[in-house]
C-alpha cells in the first residue's frame, strides 16, 4: 500500500534505443523498414516471429505486447505486434509480419508473450491468418460454426450461416458425465448475474476447487471494428467509442479515438478544450469506478445491496453533471476531432458550483464506502489474499489499468505518456502491492479521490479562463483524408486500462483498418491465472475485481 512518491522520475532511467540501434540488434532478422507514426516498424519473415520478439523483449526491454493487429492487403496479409515498455510506454516498436496471400501462415508469438494467445485467435477469427505453434488456434469471437473470416477481403456477407445439429449438441450431455472422473464441468453464464453481462466461463471443478476455468467470449461481438471502418473520420466514428465501455467510460473511450485520429491527421487541440476534456474524462472515471465498486460488492456478498444503492446514487450525481456538460446521460458523443462539441453549460457559475458540491460530498461518501465495504470483516475475508496476480504474470498477459496497478506495477498512461492536460496538474498514480482482489478495489477507490483532485483543478482553471480565449475546437477540414498508407497506434488510460486505437489510412475519408486494443480483453485473459486452484466463490470475486465490460472485451 504505497502512493508512488511524486518525485521519483522513473522514466528517465530506461535507456532508449534509436531505431538504428534496434535494427542493429535485430541484425538480419529485419527484411525491411515500415515505420509507423508512433514507432519504428521492422518487417520480418513470418517464421522468425518468436526470435524477433524474444530478442526485443530480453535484450531491449520491450516487455509489453500491447496489441496484435492483423489486416489484409491486396497482395498480402499482415500481423503487427505493437511493443512497448511498462517502464516507459513512449518507447514503442512495431514488428510487422507479412504473410502469404494464398496461404497466410505466420509463427505465433505466444511462446514469448502469453497475451498473444487471445490476440492471435482473434486475428485468426476475423482476418483468417493462421499462426504456427499456437497452442489453441480456434475462433474466439464468432460462433465456432461460422464460415468465412468477416474482415478479410473476400468475405461474402450474403452467404447464409448454417449451423448443423452436431455443432449444437448439448456440451453437458455425454462426455462431461464421466463416471470415472472425479471432476465436474460447470457452465457459468452466458446468462448469470455474476458475470457482468454475457460472459461464459467453462469451469472444471474438483469438489469445490477450480481446476481450470476458460472464459468463452464473443456473446456481444458487435462488429465495432467493421462499424468504424465504414464510417468517416470526422463525425461518423465518434459515437461508437461510447458503446465499447459503457460502465461510464464514455468520454475516456472517445478520447482514445480522438487522440489517434488527431495525431494521424495532425490536428492541434486548443488548450481550453483539453481542460474540458480532462475534466469530463475524470468524471467518467469516477462513474466507472463507482459501478465497479457497486457490482463487486454485490458479487462478493449479496448482502451488500446497500453498497450498490449508495454507489449508484453517487453515479447518478456524476451522470447529472455529465448530462449538464454533454447533453446525454450515458452515450455522450461529446468529443470532436480538434476539441469538444460545445462549451460548458450556461450559466457557468451554476455548473461550477454543482461540480464543487459534488466534490465536497465525495470524500464523505468514499469514507462511507470504506466503512461499509473495505473495513468489513466478511468482505476482507473474501478478498484479501484471493485472486493473486503477481506483477510478472500481469505484465506477461498485458494487463493494464487498476488490475496491474493493484499488482504494484506503476503504469499509468496519463503520466507516462501524457496527453490532454494531465501533465500540468497535480495528482498521483495509485498503486497497491497486495496483488489480490482487495488491492484492485482499493486502487479504484483511491483513484476516485485522485480524479476528484484533477476535476477540482480543472474547475479552478476553467473558472478563471479569459472569456475571449475559450476556443473549443480547432479548425478541422470538413472532410479528413489522411495520407495514404500512414499508420498509427495511440493509447489512452481509460477506466479499465490502456485503450489503444490502431488506424491505417488509405487516402480516403474512411480508415482502411481500425483496430481496437481493449484493456478488458487483455485483463480477462488473466482470470485463469488468478482462479485456478481457488475455490469457486473466489473465481466470482476475482472476476468482479477485474471489472470487465463485455462490450469492450468483445467489441
Amino acid at each position, binding site marked *: 500500500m504505497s502512493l508512488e512518491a511524486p518525485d521519483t522520475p522513473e522514466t528517465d532511467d530506461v535507456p532508449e534505443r534509436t531505431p538504428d540501434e534496434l535494427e542493429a540488434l535485430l541484425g538480419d532478422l529485419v527484411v525491411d523498414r515500415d515505420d509507423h507514426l508512433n514507432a519504428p516498424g521492422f518487417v520480418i519473415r513470418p517464421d522468425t516471429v518468436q526470435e524477433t520478439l524474444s530478442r526485443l523483449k530480453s535484450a531491449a526491454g520491450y516487455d509489453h505486447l500491447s496489441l496484435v493487429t492483423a489486416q489484409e492487403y491486396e497482395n498480402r496479409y499482415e500481423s503487427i505486434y505493437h511493443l512497448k515498455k511498462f517502464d516507459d510506454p513512449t518507447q514503442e516498436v512495431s514488428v510487422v509480419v507479412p504473410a502469404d496471400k494464398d496461404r497466410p501462415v505466420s509463427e505465433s508469438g505466444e511462446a514469448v508473450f502469453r497475451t498473444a494467445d487471445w490476440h492471435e485467435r482473434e486475428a485468426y477469427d476475423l482476418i483468417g491468418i493462421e499462426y504456427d505453434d499456437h497452442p489453441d488456434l480456434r475462433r474466439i*469471437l*464468432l*460462433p465456432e460454426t*461460422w464460415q468465412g473470416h*468477416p474482415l478479410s477481403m473476400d*468475405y461474402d*456477407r*450474403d452467404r*447464409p*450461416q*448454417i*449451423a*448443423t*445439429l*452436431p455443432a*449444437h449438441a448439448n456440451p453437458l450431455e455425454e462426455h462431461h458425465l464421466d463416471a470415472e472422473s472425479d471432476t465436474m464441468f460447470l457452465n457459468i453464464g*452466458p*446468462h*448469470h*448475474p455474476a458475470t*457482468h*453481462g*454475457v460472459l461464459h466461463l467453462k469451469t472444471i471443478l474438483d469438489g469445490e476447487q477450480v481446476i481450470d476455468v476458460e472464459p468463452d467470449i*464473443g*456473446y*456481444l*461481438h*458487435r*462488429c*465495432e471494428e*467493421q*462499424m468504424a471502418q*465504414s464510417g468517416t473520420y470526422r463525425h461518423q466514428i465518434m*459515437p*461508437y467509442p*461510447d*458503446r465499447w465501455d*459503457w*460502465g*461510464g467510460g464514455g468520454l475516456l473511450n472517445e478520447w482514445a479515438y480522438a487522440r489517434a485520429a488527431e495525431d494521424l491527421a495532425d490536428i492541434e487541440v486548443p488548450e481550453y478544450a483539453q481542460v474540458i476534456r480532462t475534466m469530463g474524462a475524470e468524471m467518467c472515471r469516477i462513474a466507472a469506478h463507482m*459501478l465497479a465498486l457497486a457490482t463487486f460488492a454485490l458479487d462478493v456478498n449479496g448482502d451488500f445491496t446497500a453498497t*450498490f*444503492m449508495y454507489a*449508484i*446514487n453517487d*453515479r*447518478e450525481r456524476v*451522470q447529472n453533471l455529465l448530462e449538464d456538460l454533454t447533453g446525454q*446521460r*450515458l*452515450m455522450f458523443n461529446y468529443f470532436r476531432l480538434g476539441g469538444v462539441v460545445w462549451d460548458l453549460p450556461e450559466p457557468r457559475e451554476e455548473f461550477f458550483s454543482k461540480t464543487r458540491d459534488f466534490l465536497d460530498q465525495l470524500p464523505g461518501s468514499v469514507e462511507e464506502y470504506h466503512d461499509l465495504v473495505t473495513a468489513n470483516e466478511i468482505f476482507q475475508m473474501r478478498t484479501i489474499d484471493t485472486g493473486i496476480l503477481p506483477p510478472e504474470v500481469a505484465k506477461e498477459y498485458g494487463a493494464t489499468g487498476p488490475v496491474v496497478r493493484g499488482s504494484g506495477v506503476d503504469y499509468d498512461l496519463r503520466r507516462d505518456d501524457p496527453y490532454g492536460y494531465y501533465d500540468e496538474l497535480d495528482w498521483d498514480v495509485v498503486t497497491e502491492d497486495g496483488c489480490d482482489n482487495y488491492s484492485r478495489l482499493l486502487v479504484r477507490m483511491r483513484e476516485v479521490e485522485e480524479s476528484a483532485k484533477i476535476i477540482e483543478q480543472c474547475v479552478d482553471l476553467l473558472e478563471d479562463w479569459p472569456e475571449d480565449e475559450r476556443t473549443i475546437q480547432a479548425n478541422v477540414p470538413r472532410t479528413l483524408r489522411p495520407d495514404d498508407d500512414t499508420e498509427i497506434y495511440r493509447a489512452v488510460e481509460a477506466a479499465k486500462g490502456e485503450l489503444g486505437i490502431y488506424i491505417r489510412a488509405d487516402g480516403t475519408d474512411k480508415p482502411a483498418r481500425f483496430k481496437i486494443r481493449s484493456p478488458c480483453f487483455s485483463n480477462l485473459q488473466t482470470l485463469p491465472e488468478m482462479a485456478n486452484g481457488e475455490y469457486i466463490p473466489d473465481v466470482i470475486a476475482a472476476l468482479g475485481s477485474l471489472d470487465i465490460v*463485455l*462490450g469492450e472485451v468483445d467489441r
Partner: protein
Amino acid sequence: MSSDQPFITDESRVVTETRDSRMEGQGDRFNSRLREAFGSSPFILTKFDKFLNWCRGSSMFMLQFGIACCSIEMMHTYAVKHDLDRFGSGVPRASPRQADVMIVPGTIVSKFAPRMKRVYDQMPEPKFVVGMGSCTISGGPFQEGYNVIKGAEEVIPIDIHVPGCPPRPEALVYGVVKLQERVANGEAAPVTVKPYELEEFSDLERDELVEKLTDQIDEDELVMRYNFADSP
C-alpha cells in the same frame, strides 16, 4: 349473467338443498347448484380473471438479465432515484424460472441469440418481454454488422419496445408501466407459435420445407440458419 338458469331460481329449493346437504354431511355439497352457478357464470368468472390480472400486473418479477449498454440504464432504473419497485415490478430474479418479465437490454448477436431463446423458453407462462433500446428494435447503430441480429423480435416475441440509445430510465419505467397496464387489462402471454417462425416458411408443408432448404445444406441436419443479410 348468460347462464341458462336465473341466478336464483326456486329460493326454497336451493337453500333447502344446501342446508340439507350440510346437515346430512357431504352429500353433493361440493357439486351444489350454487357452486355450479358460480362456476358457469361468466360474470363471476370475468371478475375473478380481472382480479387475477390486476394481481399479475401489479406484481411482476423481472429477470435479472444484462446484455449491453442498456443494462446500465436498467440498473439505474432498479436502483435509487428511479426505483422501479414503486410500480410493483422491481424485483429482479436471477433465475428465469421465477420471472414473469424479461427486459432485453442490448444488442443480440449470433452467438447469443440461441442462448437468449433458451432463457426465454425457461420462463414459465404467462411471460412478457420488454425490448429496451434501438438494438432490440432493429439492431440499432450496429445494424450493418455481420454478426448482429436485426432486432430481438427475430428470436423471441416482444410486447413493448422502448426506443432510445439507450433509453433514459424514465422511458424504461414508462414502458414497463405500459406493459403492466396491458397485463392488468387482460393481455395474455403470446401464443407459442412465433410470428418469426411463420413468416419465412409461411404455409409450406414439412416436406416442401426440407426441399426448399436442401440447396443450402449438405446433410439433413440443419437446425439453425443465420442469414442476417436478408432478414427484415
